[in-house]
């Protein structure tokens, strides 16, 4: 009996997870002002089914919470209430709270009442607010602090139990130049709740001595928020190491006998304006300074944070009916086994090739069939690893919404191509770089509405996320219609940091590419140009590790688009086999622009910068692979041989090779499983005869060649 119940519970949790995901997605699409009735129904059904299940299993906290939610949604459904932005916010918070409750219940615990009760009260208040009375918010001090009045907790969080954090923030010397403007950090803090900001300018040196790039102002900030410590730390995440940060709290400040009494909800109040606990209590002005929290309160707060953490980890993944979970290792084992079969099969084909006779003929037929079957098997196994990119894209509507709200920007997110499939491993590892790029676009690319209007653009910025297949790879682009990159600023910084010699002329793509340079990204962050320096070198590294490339397209005042090209899979690549000094290498087909016989005079020496090859009227750097790889056999016939023009990240180079051997699909094996990563080599594969061939890392080679050339120049 017990066992059965657990089993049902597990199902219930899964269903809850799915219902909540659906509710969240619906909320994000909900049209404020004119909600689609079917959407409202979906919300109601979600809350209703969770309530039913929770009641059945005796999860009292969840039952009473969802009951309130259901009442509110019912009012919405009946048209007694209207959908406001604040209401959507409240409902989103409720979804989050339910997720936490589920994960708490799983561990046999309850979510801290201090978190749930104010939310319940706000829901009740919103449900009790009839449509007509929404403007008559009570208490009379309005729901939002007017723009020109300093934010003060006395207004926003009046007379209520609030949680207060005292933050001492002392910028370090490199903070500004790393792009962490205290203005932005403080703004984000303000997004958590009412703040009191005190600037301490004592340490600012005399004007003449002041280094404008070093911030000497210190800040003491009091934030009133129910958000956990994590949320505060997250804001300072990028500034870590470049500042001193003391986060003191949480301090519970009880001005009334919180939690709110049920009769509070009798007062009609504005539909749940954030912060949640604010307006459904009598206006009691807080006069006492922050009392020291009792140990018990502190402990309670710590538990609360703990519960949040587990809630995130324990969030149930939506489970498809009729699917099973298989570890990626098992699929890799399958892939390896298939790879072995391919090798054995081609070995057999080779051995039979010289044999005559009917028996040999039959054998050949059989082998041809085998080859086809194996190919199909290989593709099927590959498909097992593929997932649609919507798995990653789905987190962005919420991120964009939250972040743009916090920064006071208006941003519309346009997503397309979310059904494009790619390898699970690629998918897992592309998430963080994408979040980084999207954050950057919102944070620095897209301007504030006033500024946009001033430059004749619509107040609402547009952020586009797009994915599509192109050749054997997948393209993901993150674009915005913000202010674009400032090429002069990048150039200056690059020269300052010695990344670029004076007098070197670069094309625009080459200039934009500089923001990925580790040395520059620190400087670039500072520029606020469009702030894309924040860990851009890390973004590129992540992408390169996946065998991908990244390039930038930007126009001043028009916006920036970052294009990521990734292999569909990390397991297989279509390759061109080439011979270099007696060794066989593989060049990924996607990178090849053209292979051509070398013409006399097509190669010329560029003073101190190595050789260039004339290709379609352009001069591209020539890399002699034999030299670069230090190959043994070196019959130097400078004007004979083949040139293969390859392209990656918007840059072309010409590879000087001895011969072209053939094309084949190869299974990629990592070198660092047993050895380590090698510059210019992305992996290895096993050819038909069982010999190992190395796969060239074209973007890496291009960079390597640039290094060698600049060393030569020096």
């Amino acid at each position, binding site marked *: 009996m017990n066992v059965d119940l657990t089993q049902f519970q597990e199902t219930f949790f899964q269903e809850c997870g799915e219902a909540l995901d659906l509710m969240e997605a619906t909320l994000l699409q909900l049209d404020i002002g004119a909600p689609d009735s079917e959407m409202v129904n979906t919300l109601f059904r979600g809350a209703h089914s969770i309530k039913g299940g929770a009641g059945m299993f005796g999860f009292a906290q969840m039952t009473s919470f969802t009951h309130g939610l259901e009442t509110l949604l019912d009012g919405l459904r009946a048209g007694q209430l209207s959908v406001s932005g604040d209401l959507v916010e409240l409902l989103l918070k409720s979804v989050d709270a339910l997720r936490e409750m589920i994960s708490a219940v799983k561990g046999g615990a309850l979510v801290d009442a201090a978190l749930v009760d104010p939310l319940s009260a706000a829901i009740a208040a919103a449900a009790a607010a009839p449509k007509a009375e929404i403007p008559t918010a009570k208490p009379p001090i309005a729901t939002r602090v007017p723009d020109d009045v300093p934010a003060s907790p006395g207004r926003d969080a009046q007379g209520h139990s609030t949680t207060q954090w005292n933050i001492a923030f002392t910028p370090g010397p490199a903070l500004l130049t790393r792009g962490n403007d205290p203005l932005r950090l403080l703004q984000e803090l303000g997004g958590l709740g009412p703040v009191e900001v005190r600037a301490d300018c004592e340490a600012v040196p005399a004007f003449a001595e002041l280094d404008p790039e070093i911030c000497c102002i210190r800040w003491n900030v009091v934030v009133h928020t129910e958000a956990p410590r994590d949320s505060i730390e997250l804001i300072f995440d990028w500034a870590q190491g470049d500042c001193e940060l003391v986060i003191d709290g949480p301090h519970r400040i009880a001005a009334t006998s919180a939690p709110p009494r049920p009769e509070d909800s009798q007062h009609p109040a504005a539909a749940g304006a954030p912060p949640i606990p604010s307006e459904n209590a009598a206006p009691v002005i807080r006069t006492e300074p922050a009392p020291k929290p009792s140990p018990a309160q502190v402990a309670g707060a710590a538990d609360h944070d703990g519960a949040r953490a587990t809630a995130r980890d324990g969030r149930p993944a939506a489970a498809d009916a009729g699917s099973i979970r298989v570890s990626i290792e098992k699929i890799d084992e399958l892939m*390896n086994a298939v790879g072995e079969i391919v090798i054995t099969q081609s070995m057999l084909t080779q051995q039979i090739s010289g044999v005559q006779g009917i028996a040999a003929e039959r054998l050949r037929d059989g082998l041809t069939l085998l080859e086809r079957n194996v190919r199909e098997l290989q593709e099927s196994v590959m498909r097992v690893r593929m997932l649609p990119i919507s798995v990653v894209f789905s987190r962005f509507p919420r991120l964009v919404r939250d972040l743009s709200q916090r920064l006071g920007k208006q941003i519309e997110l346009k997503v397309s191509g979310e059904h494009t499939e790619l390898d699970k491993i690629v998918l897992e590892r592309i998430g963080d770089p994408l979040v980084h790029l999207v954050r950057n676009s919102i944070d620095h690319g897209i301007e504030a509405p006033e500024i946009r209007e001033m430059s004749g653009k619509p107040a609402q910025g547009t952020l586009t996320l797009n994915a599509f297949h192109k050749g054997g790879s997948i393209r993901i682009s993150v674009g915005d219609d913000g202010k674009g990159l400032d090429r002069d600023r990048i150039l200056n910084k690059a020269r300052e940091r010695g990344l670029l010699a004076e007098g070197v002329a670069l094309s625009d793509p080459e200039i934009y590419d500089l923001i990925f340079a580790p040395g520059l990204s620190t400087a670039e962050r500072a520029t606020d140009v469009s702030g894309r320096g924040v860990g851009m070198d890390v973004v590129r590294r992540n992408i390169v590790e996946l065998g991908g490339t990244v390039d930038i397209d930007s126009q001043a005042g028009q916006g920036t688009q970052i294009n990521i090209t990734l292999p569909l899979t990390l397991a297989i690549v279509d390759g061109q086999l080439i011979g270099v000094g007696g060794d066989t290498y593989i060049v990924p087909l996607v990178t090849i622009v053209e292979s051509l016989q070398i013409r006399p005079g097509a190669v010329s020496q560029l003073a101190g910068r190595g050789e260039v090859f004339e290709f379609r009227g352009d001069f591209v750097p020539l890399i002699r692979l034999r030299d670069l790889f230090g190959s043994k056999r070196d019959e130097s016939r400078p004007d004979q041989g083949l040139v293969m023009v390859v392209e990656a990240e918007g840059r072309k180079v010409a590879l000087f090779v001895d011969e072209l051997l053939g094309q084949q699909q190869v299974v990629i094996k990592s070198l660092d499983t047993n050895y380590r990563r090698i510059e210019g080599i992305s992996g290895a594969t096993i050819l038909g005869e069982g010999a190992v061939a190395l796969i060239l890392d074209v973007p890496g080679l291009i960079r390597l060649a640039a290094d060698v050339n600049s060393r030569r120049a020096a």
Partner: protein
Amino acid sequence: MTQASTNSAKGPERPRQMLTFRLGDELFAVDILRVQEIRGWSEVTRIPRSPPHLLGVLNLRGSIVPIVDMRLRFGLSRAEFTPLTVIIVLSVTSEAGTRELGMVVDGVSDVVDMAPDALRELPTLGNRTSTELIAGLASIENRMVILLDVNELMAMEQSTPVAVAATAAA
């Protein structure tokens, strides 16, 4: 050296089985439990821009395994590869997974028992031979045997930055 004492402290009471192999005039030994297979020399795929002692990589049952010339690793002169030249494939399993490495030696000698008390600390000598891969010395059947530190050998191959080779003669 501390490694030797650590090893002896950890060592079981029973004798350990060691595989001994020849390298120049010296006799070396590795724990037989670390040896995955012994195979004859076969042509490897060269890795560009790698140190000279790394001969290349080999396909061993679908796994790409680096092959190290132990003579060069220990600073001895390069020897011709003969039919007697063998590759000892070592395998070490840790939390990070199983790692394999092949080492080319002059020849495999024997499998011997090593009593726990046979292990000696390495005398500090300032000779040309690098001591960084040596776990200790043991006297086995009246012969001095050098114990190879397999973990360190693997760790160094995985982490030493690739020598700036690129004979960039233009």
